[in-house]
């Protein structure tokens, strides 16, 4: 047995089913050994997308997604994908090949100091220098990636270590790291304090973030808020914790959020942030949420608490454990009046849109699409205007909403949708992107074709980098710079080139018929929607 065989055994021990990647000489021993395994390899068309695909898979399975790329440019290309996962706390294990240990530091061919380069985007990284360390390192890496605050872990393995003989393979039963013991259970005294505040509060609200989904606390949270009738808002990453049309859910907060959600948060007297970072896009003025109210901040990462806003009650721990502990407390609270006020805010919400009938109205289109989607369908939004429209108008039933929230990485939707589809082939997976973001990951249509991954793709085409154009519209008074996408390819021909079905929707006239065909089977389709180039999200 050699190091590469040991790596594969480690992945098997961890129950890994897919590895996304791109080979090169430095990772060839790994890709040679994997042939003997049941683990499926997916040849992605650029390394960044290997990490995105692994991210999509991780978000559906709750297990770290795995990607494996070569040294040098393979490793540097994957960094954006790793940084994207890091910003959204998605568990990944990323394996990079490396040059021979004797050549390390000599600027040899395809050598890159990847552990150094990626340091600020990983939860942890390893450079394997001894083949005997492989089982321990992989055991630790999977543990680190998927406990505490989730995140990517990188393992850099020189080619000679992959080829070195390993005398005996034993996968460690336990992880023993003196420096890593995340707090999972919330402090009992703090939990009691929160319950006291809930009893006292007249206008409580819970703001849920991606942490609720990552700790698989969705059901616990829903049960709790339904029992005590506590209203809920969410951050972008927290979309799909609550069904959009749930009577207790008032939408996404933030500068692109719903006015009623922001009002609910600002006017509350008790705000519980659960698995949310209080990041600038969700809370642009952290002072506002600490003034005149009790702020409870629940997060598994102690460093997030107090980073952007000083809470009244800090509560470190895993959201699922904490809501299970909350559920064990019996208490009374009464805030029907507050719920009525919020309901009134929601009812009187003014939608300012005046769509151009010559084009597809993204708002109406996305709403109609959501209504027709399978209840447990997975909606993957890209980045740009399409993301904001998706956040605002997608109606989540029991499905999932995936997007790159923290890093805002264009091109995320197609590879992430592929990962999600492979994670659960029975589920409907739809990637919604703009013509800019589509072209950033267009090469993956080949991967979809090669491995028969039937993702459905919608391109909201407006011929512009719309989000930047909108910014230039407001900030530079329509002084557009480098946002014109007029060289884009004809999407019908692109679809034909990849042997993919193509549909076109020019305006809302045929929306029912087009969507019925689009969603009618489990094959991949490319649906192009023509959107008014001057349409705005605000």
């Amino acid at each position, binding site marked *: 047995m050699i190091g590469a065989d040991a790596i594969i055994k480690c992945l098997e021990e961890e129950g890994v089913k897919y590895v996304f990647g791109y080979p090169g000489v430095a990772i060839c021993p790994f890709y040679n050994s994997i042939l003997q395994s049941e683990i499926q390899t997916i040849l992605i068309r650029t390394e960044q997308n290997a990490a995105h695909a692994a991210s999509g898979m991780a978000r559906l399975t709750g297990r770290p997604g795995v990607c494996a790329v070569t040294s040098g440019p393979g490793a540097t290309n994957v960094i954006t994908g790793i940084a994207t996962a890091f910003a959204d706390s998605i568990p990944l294990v990323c394996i990079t090949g490396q040059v021979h240990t004797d050549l390390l530091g000599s600027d040899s061919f395809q050598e890159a100091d990847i552990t*150094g380069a990626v340091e600020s985007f990983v939860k942890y990284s390893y450079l394997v220098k001894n083949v005997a360390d492989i089982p321990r390192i992989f055991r630790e890496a999977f543990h680190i990636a998927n406990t505490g605050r989730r995140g990517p872990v990188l393992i850099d393995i020189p080619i000679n270590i992959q080829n070195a003989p390993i005398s005996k393979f034993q996968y460690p039963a336990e992880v023993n790291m003196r420096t890593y013991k995340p707090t999972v259970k919330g402090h009992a005294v703090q939990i009691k304090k929160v319950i006291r505040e809930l009893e006292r509060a007249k206008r409580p609200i819970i703001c849920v973030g991606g942490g609720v989904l990552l700790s698989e606390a969705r059901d616990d949270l829903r049960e709790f808020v339904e029992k005590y009738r506590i209203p809920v808002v969410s951050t972008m990453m927290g979309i799909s914790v609550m069904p959009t049309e749930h009577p207790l859910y008032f939408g996404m907060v933030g500068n692109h959020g719903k006015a009623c959600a922001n009002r609910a948060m600002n006017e509350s007297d008790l705000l519980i942030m659960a698995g949310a970072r209080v990041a600038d896009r969700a809370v642009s003025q952290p002072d506002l949420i600490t003034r005149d109210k009790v702020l409870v901040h629940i997060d598994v990462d102690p*460093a997030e608490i107090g980073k952007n806003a000083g809470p009244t009650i800090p509560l470190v721990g895993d959201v699922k454990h904490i809501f299970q502990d909350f559920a064990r407390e019996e208490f009374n609270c009464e805030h029907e009046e507050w719920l009525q006020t919020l309901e009134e805010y929601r009812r009187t919400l003014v939608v300012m849109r005046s769509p151009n009938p010559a084009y597809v109205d993204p708002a109406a289109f996305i709403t109609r699409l959501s209504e027709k989607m399978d209840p447990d369908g997975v909606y993957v939004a890209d980045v740009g205007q399409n993301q904001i429209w998706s956040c605002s108008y997608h109606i989540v039933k029991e499905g999932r909403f995936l997007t790159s929230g923290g890093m805002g990485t264009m091109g995320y939707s197609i590879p992430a949708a592929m990962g999600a589809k492979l994670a659960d082939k029975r589920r409907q997976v739809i990637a919604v992107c703009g013509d800019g973001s589509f072209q950033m990951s267009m090469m993956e249509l080949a991967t979809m074709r090669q491995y028969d991954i039937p993702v459905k793709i919608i391109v909201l085409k407006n011929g512009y980098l719309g989000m930047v154009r909108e910014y230039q519209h407001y900030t530079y008074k329509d002084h557009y710079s480098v946002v014109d996408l007029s060289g884009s390819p004809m999407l019908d021909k692109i679809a034909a080139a990849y042997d993919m079905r193509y549909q076109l929707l020019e305006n809302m006239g045929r929306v029912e018929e087009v969507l019925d065909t689009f969603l009618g089977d489990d094959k991949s389709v490319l649906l192009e929607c023509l959107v008014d180039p001057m349409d705005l999200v605000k």
Partner: protein
Amino acid sequence: MRKRIYSVLVENRSGVLGKVAGLFARRCFNIDSLTVGETDDPEISCMTIVSSGDERTIEQIEKQLNKKLDVIKVKTFDETQSVSRELMLVKVRHNKGNRREITEICEILRAEIVDMSKHFMMIQICDTPERTKLLLTMLQSISIAEVARTGTLALAKCSENDD
């Protein structure tokens, strides 16, 4: 702005110093000084980092350090709660005219002359950071050729509930 000393026990592995220093750079935390050396356990190094910032920054530094997986333990204290020392070597040019002044300064500040040649003299001081700085200021009026400092080393004052 408050001064704060962090005594950080870390795994004695390659790259750890870079990770810790990188954390300070990335999050825009100040480093006034950083010293590192092995402890009695060869697998553990101790870093002494002197930093400054407002309350929130001081708290964040500790939390972010604790988040690093190579960090075993972070102890943090103010100067008054610790014994801190700095070692400095200063090479000065001497001549007939300033020799007496130099030796007097050394005597007053309890610095030692540890090496000497026809035109140069090396002075060593091991004292609190303030007194070390004071010596440097005093010698600046003479003629400094070279300076090497360790940065602050510190340990929390002895107390009965030490672990």
